[in-house]
């Protein structure tokens, strides 16, 4: 299960809406071993595409180095689908490489945004519950 604050869900959805019809992407970092998403990092989609996203490699290098310095990990990696449902595509699955990361998919294809979370390990997708909290206990 992904437990995530309302504020972070709102930030992710706002980013997805702002970049619509292009796909939006980013990270929520959190302390290593905590499984708690805390630090919202909006990333550039280097592809600027409605059907594809890729982190800019230089931006990713800086963000990953910052996380390393702070003993953080990418607790959440999110991106949006802008014309299809919030379910991992074949391409998403082929790139997913972090067994401990929650892969969040947001869809902006409908009136109400979809916000769903998955584990993707060795090509196997497992949807998980999302628990939205006002604050972490």
């Amino acid at each position: 299960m992904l437990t995530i604050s309302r504020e972070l869900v709102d930030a992710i959805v706002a980013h997805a809406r702002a970049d619509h019809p292009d796909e939006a992407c980013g990270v929520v970092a959190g302390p290593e071993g905590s499984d708690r998403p805390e630090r919202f990092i909006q990333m550039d989609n280097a592809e600027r595409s409605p059907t594809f996203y890729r982190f800019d490699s230089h931006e990713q290098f800086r963000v990953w180095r910052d996380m390393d310095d702070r003993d953080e990990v990418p607790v959440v990696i999110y991106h949006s689908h802008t014309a299809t449902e919030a379910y991992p595509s074949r391409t998403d699955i082929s790139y997913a490489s972090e067994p401990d990361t929650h892969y969040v998919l947001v869809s902006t294809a409908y009136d109400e945004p979809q916000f769903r979370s998955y584990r993707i390990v060795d090509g196997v997708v497992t949807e998980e519950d999302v628990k939205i909290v006002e604050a972490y206990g």
Partner: protein
Amino acid sequence: MAIEVRIPTILRNYTDGAKAVDAKGATLAELIGDLEARHPGLKERLVDDAGLRRFVNVYLNDEDVRFLGGLGTPVADGDTVTVLPAVAGGAR
């Protein structure tokens, strides 16, 4: 001295869990060859017949080697090579 190679979580099963390992070589291709000798299986995760795999980013110090000379990029003692998984996907 050697070249420090920083290994992402996903590939640490090849390095007995080490976050960073040392390797030698005059170019990135040689370095990866040396890595393979020390940590068998790693090379296949980094390169294929066409060159660097699209699923990984490899950096020399803080520059993506795709913007340098790819596998032919010269490397030297004291450099740091960082491997990160590329983060990408799409609607299809």
